[in-house]
């Protein structure tokens, strides 16, 4: 399934370089900080654009998976995501904010898709088979990890906003555990 959804070799190389320079700069290497700034200005827009493109394609696959060929549900989900993007990104978002918004939206969608698939499977299987505890644990781990990443994505977007505005910000994340 991934294949076409992978970053190019070039983008991966730049990210590896950025990661290494960030670590050095954080450790106090002034030359690395200069180089990091140069590399960020030079390659960040392209990498962000590529990653945003992949994000959109991943979201499209997730929408198709959960809507299971039902056009109305597909439309409804896309509209919901469109609204979420507009609400989260706000007016005149920077490219990094756009990417982080995509990450939040995709994270939300992923959690919804995983929960939806698992719920559907239980409705189908529980009466016919006994579900192995190890299987349930593995499923829970996958959902838990996706939820954690989704919340981390929200926090990171808030951090970037704080950085860009220079104002202090409080991050509140709400998790709805029970559904009506």
């Amino acid at each position: 399934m991934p294949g076409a959804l992978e970053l190019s070799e070039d983008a991966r190389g730049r990210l590896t370089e950025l990661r290494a320079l960030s670590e050095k700069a954080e450790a106090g290497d002034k030359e690395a900080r200069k180089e990091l700034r140069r590399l960020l200005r030079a390659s960040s827009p392209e990498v962000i654009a590529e990653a945003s493109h992949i994000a959109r394609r991943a979201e499209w696959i997730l929408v198709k998976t959960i809507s299971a060929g039902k056009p109305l549900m597909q439309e409804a989900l896309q509209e919901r995501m469109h609204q979420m993007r507009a609400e989260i990104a706000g007016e005149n978002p920077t490219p990094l904010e756009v990417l982080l918004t995509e990450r939040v939206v995709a994270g939300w969608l992923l959690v919804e898709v995983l929960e939806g698939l698992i719920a559907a499977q239980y409705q189908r299987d529980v009466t016919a088979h006994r579900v192995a505890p190890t299987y349930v644990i593995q499923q829970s781990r996958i959902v838990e990890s996706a939820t954690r990443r989704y919340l981390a994505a929200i926090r990171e977007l808030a951090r970037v906003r704080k950085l860009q505005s220079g104002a202090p910000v409080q991050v509140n994340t709400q998790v709805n555990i029970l559904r009506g």
Partner: protein
Amino acid sequence: MTLERRNGRLYYYRSVRDGEKVRKVYVGAGEVARICYETDMLRRTDRRAHQERERTELERLEGLVALVEEFSGAAKVLVIAHLVDAVYRKRKGEWRRARSA
């Protein structure tokens, strides 16, 4: 599970784990042996098919997670690079503006 034929007669034994050892437990002979053996085989096949379905389902879920992982990892690196560039430092898991900024 073994279905043995001795002197033209069928004997069926189940393998039962007892701690580290595996014991052969006699189930029956003749027609009973054959019926018990076939029932056990059907159950085993069904259990394996069910395990296979569970494995496939988990792979499917992990595949969906992987879709988001790729660009999510890229976003993470970019955020850290921007934070470090803006003279932020990670202290006890929290990003704070460095004093030198």
